[in-house]
């Protein structure tokens, strides 16, 4: 009998892991956005002195992990597991950074849902008694994503209005079996839901049903109400996806509008920065959580947050073969109080 299981998709932790510290590093464009004051490091050149975008993305991840570990005042050898993933084929940004970091490594793929996927698994490992200290990390880079999924950078094409801008950035969180608030108290693991959208430039609409499904399931499993939260924030649904998710959640009888936002909307000023529908990428919810939200929790400006990173599980091959885009989302409750 799974003692910590709550309802059909949620886990409630007996010894909720503490988030000891976090780190966020972003690229120059993100560093000009509305959340610029919350990031730990803004790089001035989007290759960060490396000779390929992929190497730069690995470096972002390595440095974010190291910064998070050092601000937790522990050493790298104390880390029991590194849980990381990214968008690149065969998750090379993560495995190549793990090659450098030399920690026991579990590579994850959940597209842009990786931040909450890693926090979910990390929390379960700690509460299960399998680890004391875990680092959860993820990254994305505008230029690595463009060349893998879309067009060469210098190609003179027009981006549709529903398209999103992949965030250049990496975020890392150190979870611990002991320590102060904030804590991860619940996780709700989402199902893959495919509403049949085939347009790879409209990922918000493709992921919104998965996000709203996991949010509604979270309320059903835990008995929480939207008003129990100070903030409910999805990963990268952006402007269109957020509107849809809100509608879908309302159809199930929950009104989240007063506390609901999306990391893809928060990170850029879409009008000024010309990012169309908003930000996307693993790095989007990673830097918004590890930069902005974590600091708000620490300062008690927010006390209970539901973070739902959202992933579009497509590949260039599946898109070219005319497949629709399956979506996934995982929800994590981060709270300053233990009930």
């Amino acid at each position, binding site marked *: 009998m799974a003692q910590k299981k709550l309802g059909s998709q949620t886990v409630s932790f007996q010894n909720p892991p503490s988030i000891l510290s976090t780190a966020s590093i972003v690229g120059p464009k993100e560093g000009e956005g509305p959340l610029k004051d919350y990031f730990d490091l803004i790089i001035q050149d989007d290759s960060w002195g490396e*000779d*390929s975008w992929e190497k730069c993305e690995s470096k972002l991840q390595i440095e974010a992990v190291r910064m998070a570990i050092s601000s937790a005042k522990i050493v790298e050898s104390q880390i029991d597991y590194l849980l990381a993933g990214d968008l690149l084929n065969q998750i090379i940004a993560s495995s190549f950074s793990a090659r450098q970091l030399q920690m026991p490594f579990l590579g994850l793929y959940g597209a842009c849902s990786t931040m909450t996927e890693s926090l979910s698994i990390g929390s379960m490992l700690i509460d299960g008694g399998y680890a004391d200290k875990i680092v959860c990390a993820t990254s994305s880079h505008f230029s690595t994503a463009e*060349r893998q999924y879309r*067009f*060469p*950078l*210098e*190609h*003179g*094409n*027009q*981006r*549709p*209005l*529903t398209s999103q801008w992949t965030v250049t950035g990496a975020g890392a969180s150190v979870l611990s079996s002991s320590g102060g608030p904030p804590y991860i108290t619940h996780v709700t693991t989402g199902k893959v*839901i495919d*509403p*049949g*959208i085939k347009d790879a430039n*409209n990922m918000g*609409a493709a992921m919104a*049903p998965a996000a*709203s*499904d996991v949010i*509604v399931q979270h309320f059903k499993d835990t008995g929480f109400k939207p008003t129990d939260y100070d903030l409910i924030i999805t990963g990268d649904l952006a402007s*269109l996806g957020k*509107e*849809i998710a809100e509608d*879908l959640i309302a*159809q*199930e009888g929950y009104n989240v509008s007063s506390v609901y936002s999306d990391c893809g909307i928060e990170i850029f000023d879409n009008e000024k920065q010309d990012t169309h*529908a908003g930000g996307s990428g693993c790095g989007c919810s990673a830097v918004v959580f590890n930069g902005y939200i974590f600091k708000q929790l620490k300062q008690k400006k927010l006390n209970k947050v539901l973070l739902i990173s959202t992933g579009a599980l497509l590949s260039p091959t599946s898109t070219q073969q005319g497949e*629709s885009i399956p979506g996934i989302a995982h929800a994590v409750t981060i709270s300053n109080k233990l009930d």
Partner: protein
Amino acid sequence: MKNINQKDYEKYVNSKAPKPTLLKNCIWAFIVGGLICVFGQFITNFVMDYGLDKKEAATATPITLIFLSALLTGLGLYDKIGKKAGAGSIVPITGFANAIVAPAMEFKREGFVLGVAAKMFIVAGPVLVYGIGSSVIVGIIYLLLKA
């Protein structure tokens, strides 16, 4: 939410999605596309003033435009023009040059054989295949009709 009707959902999403700014795009395409053509004409007149005949000028003009487009691509400017102009800078021969130079630059890190040379045509390749293919077919039809 469990049983999303895909057709209904698509309709619903389309009703919510921001509408593309078609008129604005058309005007920009007209202006920039037109300017590129006027500039081409300027080159033709210029080289003809220097003594090239009409046939030679028809060769010199696209060569110059292709060079300038490749240069602007290399300087990171052509994508900025393309963002505003859309079809206005994609349809002229300068757009074709951009479509070849951009991937050649992008994939240089994968080497000169499997990167630059192999990936150079990932955007423009279909245009070459179907452009050359259809011109051969039209040529054959013309030949048969003439005979």
